[in-house]
């Protein structure tokens, strides 16, 4: 009799597992997929087998009661249970809270889908988790990938489902033209289809510590729109006793990638990699070398202080130790919170004579990719969620809360109309700088494989310039040679 009973449960559970529509949700654990449910089920089998040894009337009653509980644990929950959409991201702290709030709002706004957000570490770790999960066939529906991982994601055709396809499938409203060109350009295929949804996008600007300028006897309102005038200001600052005239964050992103786009010179051939995998770096061009030579000279003269590869310099600037700081526009929240001095945001300087006027800068940050291997119902949910994220109100709020760029023009307009820019001077600089011109082939962004690693190489070579070990030309020639070797490897791995 026991065996029959066990067999019945087996039937019951295995049927549930086969039907994809029924969620195996229990009060204690949720099963993300079939595999784990099976593991749990074998545990149950093991337990029942163990209990089989029980003898006597009383024990048998207990046994049956246990089985009954087990049976209810595995009973199908009503079919109306919302479809779960898993979303892995890289945000902690304030940004993490804001993401959680967006997800909660979306879940509360409808009952068909339930987005489950999970923090998976920093950008690199999140991407690694996503890749490892895909290999184990346990990938989330939506994965946050930082901008330099874009080429890797695009090349993984069988692993990701392009954004425009998801949107078509979900039937959600989706107008690619609503997105700001310079933001979506980074994540758009050469055919013009959006592949992922830009989520947090920022662009570099120049932060000015007005008090430090005044203390060194430099007019805080002095012109800083060109690197020529910045050079003059740095000399004056140094002469005025400022120990840290200029500091930067994300040196490769700001002083090479954005520099190239801003001056409309190529960073790599094949439209910075947009037009094909057989791309080569051209970051050793005359414009870049001239800029880095000037920076190297400033470093030697103690006018530019190098603090590290990431945004270590932010701590120096926020503490009021540095006069000028090239950093992402998203540094706004931190600087506003900590700076006990009068600060100002200026557009990123450009070299007069290299171009007639600055082109546009490119973005940094992350976008949301939809992974392959899920059911249509789940893709519908993912599409709904992504379209909710790009809706004007949500975007405008996100833009104002974080300092990240709005991804749609409408969200920017709504922010302007609300009087936010007027009340918070400097917050619009990045938006204007991004949208000043229609992006060219040199200013759409970068699409280079193994780019995280190539950035590491660039960082190393830049350090050689700052320490005076190499000239800018030698360092960039070496960066090109080493970077190209990785690009060839990436090309052969993704042919």
């Amino acid at each position, binding site marked *: 009799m026991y065996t029959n009973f066990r067999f019945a449960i087996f039937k019951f559970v295995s049927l549930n597992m086969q039907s994809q529509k029924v969620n195996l949700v229990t009060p204690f654990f949720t099963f993300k997929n079939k595999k784990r449910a099976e593991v749990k089920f074998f545990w149950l089998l093991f337990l029942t087998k163990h209990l089989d040894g029980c003898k006597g009337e009383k024990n048998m009653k207990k046994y049956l009661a246990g089985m009954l509980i087990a049976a209810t644990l595995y009973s199908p929950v009503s079919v109306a249970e919302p479809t779960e959409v898993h979303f892995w991201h890289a945000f902690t702290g304030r940004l993490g809270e804001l993401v959680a709030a967006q997800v909660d709002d979306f879940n509360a706004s409808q009952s068909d889908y339930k987005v489950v957000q999970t923090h998976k570490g920093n950008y*690199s770790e999140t991407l690694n988790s996503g890749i490892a999960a895909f290999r184990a066939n346990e990938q989330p529906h939506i994965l946050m990938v930082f901008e330099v991982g874009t080429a890797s994601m695009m090349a993984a055709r069988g692993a990701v489902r392009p954004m425009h396809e998801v949107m078509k499938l979900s039937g959600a409203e989706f107008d690619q033209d609503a997105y700001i060109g310079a933001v979506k350009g980074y994540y758009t295929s050469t055919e013009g289809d959006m592949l992922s949804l830009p989520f947090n996008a920022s662009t570099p600007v120049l932060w000015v510590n007005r008090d430090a300028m005044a203390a060194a006897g430099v007019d805080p309102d002095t012109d800083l729109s060109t690197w020529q005038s910045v050079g003059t200001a740095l000399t004056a600052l140094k002469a005025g006793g400022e120990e840290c005239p200029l500091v930067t964050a994300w040196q490769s992103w700001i002083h090479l990638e954005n520099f190239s786009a801003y001056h409309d010179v190529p960073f790599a051939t094949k439209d910075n990699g947009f037009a094909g995998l057989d791309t080569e770096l051209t970051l050793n061009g005359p414009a870049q070398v001239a800029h880095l030579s000037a920076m190297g000279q400033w470093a030697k003269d103690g006018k530019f202080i*190098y603090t*590290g590869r990431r945004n270590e310099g932010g701590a120096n600037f926020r503490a009021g130790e540095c006069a000028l700081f090239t950093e992402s526009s998203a540094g706004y929240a931190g600087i506003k919170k900590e700076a006990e001095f009068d600060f100002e945001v200026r557009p990123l300087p450009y070299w007069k004579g290299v171009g007639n006027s600055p082109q546009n800068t490119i973005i940094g940050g992350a976008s949301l990719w939809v992974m392959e291997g899920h059911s249509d119902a789940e893709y519908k949910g993912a599409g709904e969620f992504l379209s909710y994220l790009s809706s004007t109100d949500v975007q405008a709020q996100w833009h104002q809360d974080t300092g990240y760029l709005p991804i749609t023009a409408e969200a920017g307009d709504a922010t302007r109309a609300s009087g936010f820019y007027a009340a918070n001077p400097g917050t619009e600089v990045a938006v204007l700088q991004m949208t000043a011109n229609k992006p060219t082939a040199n200013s759409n962004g970068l699409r280079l494989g193994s780019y*995280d*690693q190539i950035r590491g190489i660039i960082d190393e070579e830049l350090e*050689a310039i700052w320490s005076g070990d190499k000239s800018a030309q030698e360092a960039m020639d070496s960066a090109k040679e080493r970077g190209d070797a990785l690009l060839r490897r990436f090309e052969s791995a993704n042919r």
Partner: protein
Amino acid sequence: MNQRVTFRGWWLPILLIAPQVIISAVFFFYPAGQAIWQSLFIPDPFGLSSVFVGLGNFEFLFSDKFYRASFVTTAVFSILVTLCSMIPALFLAVMADRLIKGSGTYRTMLIWPYAVAPAIAGVLWLFMFNTRVGVVSWYLGQLGYDWNHVLNGGEAMGLVVVASAWGRISYNFLFFLAALQAVPRSVIEAAAIDGARFWKRFWTVVLPLLSPTAFFLLVVNIVYSFFETFGVIHTITSGGPQQSTTILVYKVFADGFVGQDLGSSAAQSVILLFVVGLLTIIQFKYIEKKVHY
């Protein structure tokens, strides 16, 4: 007269060594085999496709002058870490062994750093030497020395060596202390009666008796500096400035998990496997001969 005890039959001996063989097979031979197999391919990160390249990954690595330079960096780093962790440990152990009062407290305090995880130790040292807020770098600045491990490769190497060796001193201290206490008093007393002073006794009597322990620690510390210092390097320098602190293991991580280049990463693991194997053979073949058990 040499009597050898042998098993009758095969079953019992096989059964007895089976657990060790199984563990080695599952946790060593299988993964090592996998690494060798994967080192022959260039796979894409998602595992969707992979291209057979034969020894192409190795060719790619050895044609990279930065990879070759990494061998030198690793050698310098390992030697420094081993020396910096063994010599102070031996010194402290000798001193602690001579203590009469409060030796328990002293020893306990010396063992503490071992409980600190490498990554945490890295962060602690980083804070002390931080170019902006570091206590030590501030004092150095007062003395007129401009500490900047962010740009100066030598200083960066010094910092990661000290941070890696620091916690390890405790471990070595424990072993040296135990070994010192196992030195028979009679030998030392005999030497003393012969008129040998403390350091003379130490060099001629105690140190040779410590050689098995020292040899064991040498092997263990070299393996440690190869494989377990990764957390320290990751938190303090991330391999920079330029490539001055990129040791072989850090490169395996950087290429495999940051660069998603699993083929190259696997090939590097295989090379590392051979390097460590070779080192261990050399150690056992040549240095062990000088060790008196």
